[in-house]
């Protein structure tokens, strides 16, 4: 007798997909290589401290206060090595070198600087910045502000504190950029896996007539869609677990291997996998041309990965980009992985992410089942 849902038929689709996957895992390996390369390259390229930037100095004053400034600059050069001071005699030449890119910034100690300091006559030091590079500009401004603050400190502290200082308490150890990237890389590995397994391979199978073979059997729409979703999710879970383990070892996130954390990570991997494959299937359910998933791979990656907060905080986005982030399952996945991997918190922090991802998966699955055509 015909029945609405037979798990054996669904599992036949899962079995076929997984057998095929284990016979030709090259594509899935490629799915993991991309996020790993991104993690290693971006993790090392970004988030590092500026070292040995070129700072031109023009000294128009030979007084003791001017010497203090130069000594402070030499101290930075010797310790933090943020910049390397290069003395110029001609101010115009120094500014020209900043413009040409020979120098990253310039510092001008004006004539009578020392006298102005002693006379409390608003002494100033000029900082010439190449503000086409925001990151270098911010670094120089930050470094010079600290240097000037240090120079402004009185030799003898007044008995009554006149300036309020902010004391920062960091809840977690210092997070290197590679660690910050790891949650996004795990989600990206799962996304690439469903893009290949649920997008490219699904449409290729359709184009080769594999689905035509399925459609002449008594399998129902729901069994077929569920089978393809479960198979895709299992492959994505594999990619997620492998990236979590390898990525944690590379980035040095030891907390991943604590049993409780690993359990929460597994929950996130499972819910993310189902959300991603259901989303991909919903997008591909009526597509027949094998070129389409390949063509939209890059667009989807940009549209879903970058607004998720994986590489830059969502709070910094304009409203329209925040709206994308709000519905993007990537955002919830990345948030959940960050909570567990970087903060070591559990269900209390990730339950909204798990709820959203699971609900998203269910809604997308229902919609794609409704849209799936059981005819050619």
């Amino acid at each position: 007798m015909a029945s609405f849902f037979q798990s054996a038929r669904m599992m036949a689709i899962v079995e076929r997909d997984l057998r095929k996957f284990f016979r030709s895992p090259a594509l899935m390996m490629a799915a993991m290589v991309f996020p790993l390369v991104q993690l290693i390259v971006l993790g090392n390229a970004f988030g590092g401290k500026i070292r040995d930037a070129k700072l031109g100095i023009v000294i128009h004053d030979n007084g003791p206060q001017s010497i203090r400034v130069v000594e402070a600059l030499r101290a930075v050069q010797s310790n933090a090595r943020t910049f390397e001071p290069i003395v110029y005699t001609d101010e115009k030449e120094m500014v020209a070198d900043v413009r040409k890119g020979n120098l990253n910034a310039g510092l001008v100690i004006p004539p009578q600087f020392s006298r102005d300091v002693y006379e409390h006559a608003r002494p100033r030091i000029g900082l010439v910045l190449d503000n086409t590079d925001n990151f270098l500009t911010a670094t120089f401004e930050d470094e010079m502000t600290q240097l000037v603050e240090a120079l402004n400190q009185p030799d003898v502290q007044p008995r009554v504190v006149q300036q309020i200082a902010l004391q920062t308490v960091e809840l977690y150890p210092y997070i290197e950029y590679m660690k910050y990237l790891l949650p996004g890389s795990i989600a990206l590995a799962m996304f690439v896996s469903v893009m290949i397994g649920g997008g490219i391979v699904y449409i290729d199978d359709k184009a080769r007539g594999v689905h035509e073979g399925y459609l002449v059997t008594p399998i129902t729409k729901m069994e077929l869609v569920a089978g393809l979703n479960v198979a895709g999710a299992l492959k994505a879970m594999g990619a997620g677990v492998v990236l979590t383990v390898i990525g944690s070892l590379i980035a040095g996130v030891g907390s991943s291997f604590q049993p409780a954390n690993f359990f929460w990570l597994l929950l996130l991997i499972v819910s993310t996998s189902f959300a991603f494959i259901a989303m991909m299937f919903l997008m591909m359910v009526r597509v027949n041309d094998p070129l389409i998933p390949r063509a939209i791979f890059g667009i989807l990656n940009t549209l879903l990965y970058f607004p998720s907060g994986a590489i830059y905080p969502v709070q910094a986005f304009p409203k329209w980009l925040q709206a994308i982030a709000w519905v993007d399952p990537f955002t919830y996945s990345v948030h959940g992985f960050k909570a567990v991997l970087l903060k070591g918190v559990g269900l209390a922090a990730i339950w909204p992410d798990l709820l959203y991802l699971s609900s998203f998966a269910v809604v997308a699955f229902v919609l794609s089942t409704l849209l799936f055509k059981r005819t050619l």
Partner: protein
Amino acid sequence: MTEPQKAIQVIDIVKRYGNFTAVDGVSFDVAEGEIFGLLGPNGAGKSTLIRMMTTLLEITSGTAMVEGSDVRKDPDKARRCMGVIPQAMTSDGDLTVWENLSIYSKLYGIAAADRENSIKELLELVDLTQWRDAPAKNLSGGMRRRLEIARGLVHRPRIFFLDEPTTGLDPVSRVAVWEMIGNIKQKRHLTVLITTHYMDEADRLCDRIAIVDHGKLVALDTPRALKASIPGSSVIEAQFLNPPPGWEETLKKLAGVNSVQPEGADMYRVLTDDGPHTTTDLVETAVRASVLLKSLTVQSTTLDDVFVHYTGRQLRDHLADAPLYQSPVAWGK
């Protein structure tokens, strides 16, 4: 004498894609145990017809009944009693022969206890036992087609649909597949509906043939009756060197000639009731008129002639008639 049971009934079936009518009011019956051929060029509507009967395409109007089940109203029941071999090789190249059959056994809900014996029996039937553990991609075209045939039989269907099963195969493999289909039909008491554009295949295999052109059924009968239905029992194809004006009229006056069809390049196709006599007359007439004969062939009427008679064209003339473009997104199809 009782009329044989109808295994397939197609009543005034129509398939439209927008303004284009792919199948236009086709009706026919297929008796139980019969091998029924749908003959026609690519784009004639044969595959559309078979896809409607096998629930792969929605029917615009009309009815198709398989073993008494309306494919529109009860597609699931219809699917259980039919085995379908699509035109494309759809077996999974990365999976072994056994795995391909096992997956389909599960899709048809064959009980685990029966599965192994059923697959073993099928492999023997299609002569693939020694290849059971070979990946399907390593099989030759003919072997792969035999695997597809086995796959369509895993649930012991009573009706077997084959959509151009020998397309793309070499002549030796084609003959092997024909023999296999004939044997399987006998052993499993199947009703077979087969589409093809190979005339010899249809002539050899089919009990009855329906000729389809531009989505319409133009003729339906046994191969013998179809050949007898057209004027002339023999066909003479003759090519001349620079025949004089009015040569076609001269040929029409030869002994026994029913019709003459010019085919271009001074080639003429002469249908006659008396092949030997007409041939002799044709040669003598050419000699008398000092017209050089470049080539001459005489043969009995074939299904190709039947096709030309009913459609007015050679089958090969419109092998590329199929629509080339299909939208990548099947919105509202």
